[in-house]
């Protein structure tokens, strides 16, 4: 079923963030830029935003945002018709 036009984009949630989304692997968020989408996620799921973006508005080193098949580290990047944002964890730890 096609979501209504104002429902925002589909956002895939990686396992480290699912404690915020009550286990949901996919949620919807509104915004025309990556930063706006993450801010809307934080509004819906308080605390999620700061785990992904630091206080200087930089995506944290071990987090990655994908717009379709493009890796993005710019919060000002426009979604520009993308209907799915993927949050992923990058290689880290041991």
């Amino acid at each position, binding site marked *: 079923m096609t979501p209504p036009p104002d429902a925002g984009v589909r956002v895939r949630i*990686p396992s*480290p*963030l699912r404690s915020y989304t009550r286990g949901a692997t996919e949620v919807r968020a509104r915004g025309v830029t990556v930063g706006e989408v993450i801010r809307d996620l934080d509004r819906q799921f*308080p*605390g999620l935003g*700061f*785990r*992904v*973006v*630091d*206080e*200087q*508005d*930089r995506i*944290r080193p*071990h*987090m990655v945002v994908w717009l379709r098949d493009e890796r993005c580290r710019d919060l000002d990047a426009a979604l520009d018709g993308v209907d799915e944002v993927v949050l992923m*964890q*990058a290689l*880290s*730890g041991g």
Partner: protein
Amino acid sequence: MPRSTVDDRAQETRATTAPVLRLGTRKGAWTLTADAERREWALSEPTFLGHVVQHVMADPRDPDRVLMAARTGHLGPTVFRSDDAGRTWTEAGRPPAFHAGDPHGRAVRSVFWLTPGPAAEPGCWYAGASPQGLFRTDDHGDTWAPVDGWNDHPSWGSWAEWPDVEGTPDGSMLHSVIVDPRDAGHLYLALSGGGVFESVDGGADWHPLNRGCAADFLPDPDVETGHDPHCVRLHPLMPDRLYQQNHCGIYRLDRPAERWERIGDAMPRDVGDIGFPIELHPRDPDVAWVFPMDGTDVWPRTSPDGRPAVYATRDAGRSWHRLDTGLPPRGWFTVKRQAMCVDDHDPVGVYLGTTGGEVWASADEGATWRQIAAHLPEIYSLEIG
């Protein structure tokens, strides 16, 4: 403070309940709970398994309140808080963070150190971070604000060495935040690296307090800042007395003096006076424990010659005694600066957690030791409460 006052208050602080040890590890938090005789210890299931837990601290003003400094390999740093002694946890509504638009571009990588505030301000805690920021909460850890007097001090950039090359708890961080129990506006903190600093106005302004401390790794070993204190403790019943385990020795400072005395010179030469933690007897300001490590050659930071031992002084550092009965004859682990603690029983219990995931306990002030937990992840911190 006269010693008679110390002794009077000691009678009031002697513990009657079984201690609980709170462990922060590279992969989660655990508790170890003792029976009243401190003979049997029960290990909990993990809390926040897989999270990097730098510090877990119960509030001595209300022990049901516990704070935890944590992050994960991927996610940013935060603080969790419990109002029911660790049964349930809530994330801080506003975790420690620098101001947006910070002129140094700083963002908190890890919350490293937690210090409960003064008794008269029950919601107050301080947190130290890497990079070396200082933060304060006044609502039991829910919302945190930068301490601008420290973070924005004009000299911060020259005082704080903060290479972004190592993962906390290695490398640079702010630690050993101390509140003078007589005066909530009198604060100390320590930087690795950078030195010890003091504020007498509640954190609005700061000045270095490093005279007498060696800085063998600097071209000018007699500099005002740039030192590497590993752990600083103030004696709660004799608040003019500070002890310090430094990268370059063990020191004591009796205020109002401003020059640290290297009491580690009394350690055996073949052991040296390098280490991470230093812990104090809760009732006797002349008693302290350290866990020496090898600071020679490439700095293995394991016990000298692989022979683990605690050393204690009972005369304020004029002499030291080796305490290794029960510890393994050979071992190659490190005890980090937050991974040693004491209880307030009589005799005092002394505890240490190792990078090899073991917890060792002494119920007789270090005279004998036994292992009370093993096979845990690398232990970063160990606190009573």
